[in-house]
């Protein structure tokens, strides 16, 4: 019955390809396109938050902390709602992580406050006595690199059409205007909530230490 098919190996190969491609079309593409879209209400990172994300990468938080809550009851009980792939639409790269020496951080903005983070990054054992996390005191002194973060925002706005406003423009003057009018007030709000006098004084002088950017980023994770 199927001898004609066996005698035409090329035709047979095409047939196999069509069948498998159809399966891929039905099973992979719809959920993939759906999942890659940003979820409703997702905001891109502000420049200050992007600078904080750089601190997160630089100090290698990803080595011990994940940012992906799996849909298991044991996880959602502890960390909050399970993660959706559309939530990472503006993460380049995403920071899912693969190891949890410390807890997951994907919803940390829901249940921690800037002053808690400030205490914790200065001396983790002061709030969690059994913690094995090292202190990150240098973040209170080193300044965050807002300029690079601004350049990143300009790039993703142009290349990936990330929905930033007109205040993100490729010029030095635009950056300086943004820094003064947007980034500094945002940093000041965080610094006030941190209750750390030295940090607040630095921000009031127009300098943004890494810890402020990092906390802004962690507060965005909701």
């Amino acid at each position, binding site marked *: 019955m199927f001898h004609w098919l066996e005698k035409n190996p090329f035709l047979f190969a095409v047939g196999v390809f069509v069948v498998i491609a159809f399966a891929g079309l039905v099973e992979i593409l*719809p959920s993939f396109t759906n999942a890659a879209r940003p979820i409703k209400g997702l905001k891109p990172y502000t420049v200050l938050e992007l600078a904080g994300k750089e601190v997160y990468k630089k100090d290698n938080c990803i080595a011990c902390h994940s940012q992906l809550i799996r849909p298991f009851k044991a996880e959602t009980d502890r960390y909050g709602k399970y993660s959706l792939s559309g939530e990472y639409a503006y993460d380049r790269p995403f920071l899912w992580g693969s190891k949890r020496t410390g807890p997951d951080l994907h919803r940390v903005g829901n249940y921690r406050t800037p002053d808690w983070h400030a205490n914790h990054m200065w001396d983790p054992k002061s709030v969690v006595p059994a913690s094995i996390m090292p202190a990150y005191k240098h973040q209170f002194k080193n300044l965050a690199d807002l300029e690079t973060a601004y350049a990143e925002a300009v790039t993703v706005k142009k290349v990936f059409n990330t929905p930033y406003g007109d205040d993100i423009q490729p010029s030095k003057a635009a950056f300086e205007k943004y820094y003064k009018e947007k980034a500094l007030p945002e940093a000041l709000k965080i610094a006030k909530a941190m209750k750390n006098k030295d940090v607040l004084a630095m921000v009031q002088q127009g300098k943004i230490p890494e810890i402020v950017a990092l906390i802004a980023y962690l507060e965005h994770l909701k």
Partner: protein
Amino acid sequence: MNSFVVKALVLAGVLIVGTLVVIKQMHVDLSDPVNMITFLGAIAIAVLAFGVAAKYMGQMKTDTATGELAEENWDGIGEYKNELPAGWAYSFLGVMIWAIWYFLWGYPLNAYSQIGEYNQEVKNYNKKFEAIHKNASPEVLKEMGESIFLVQCAPCHGETGDGLSGKAQDFEHRMSKKQVLAVLKSGQHQLMYPLGAMPAGLASGQQAEEVAAYVAGGMKGKAPAAWATCAGCHGQDGTGNGGTAPNLKTYDVTLVQHVLKHGKTGIIGHMPAFPGRFTPVQEKALAAYLQTLKQ
């Protein structure tokens, strides 16, 4: 029956006896349907595998190939044009029909969902949890409250609930004098109790000092005259008029529920809201545990 079949059935018998020995040794409970089905499946596999193998090995000894040869051959190796055995043919047909259904209907329209499985898991768990702990004893609630507290609350309030020397609310006391004074001065409506907003400036100066000292002291002794204003909403004994206003004496269930639902910002700082994080039983457990922390 040829010797192959006899040998195969003996081998299958040995395997079945071996399985029985293991079941006996490991105390497997055969009244559990899953175990029973597994056991019956093992017997079927043993008998079928050896039986079928023996039948065809026996047949190979005597059988000769017959039938009409197909036209094409490969270096002299030919192929008979015999029909497929009926069992194979029907299986193929069945799989083809199933595959068409699965491609066009089964997968795209009725797909398995990971989230669906998660929802089911949570639903089943919560149902079981509520049923088991419907009338939980105070000891069970306290223990449950402690474990929730250590995971969810301790990072800010400290493992002993002391608020880490002023970084968060101190659960060993209900309210400090400073906190009472601050609320009297600014009013309060963050917790959305049914009795509504508490206006600012209900008491001031000496009166406020007296009320604050009275509340912070755990409402012991004689109430100051200005307490009458507070008692209008919070009740004469300060326990919140049956849950319509905040309890000023202990951390009761309604207080825990309202704070978890709305969060709270006070002179210490800000506590985020945890809406929907805990079940009613867990909230009861948290309150039960917080009350044991009180000195």
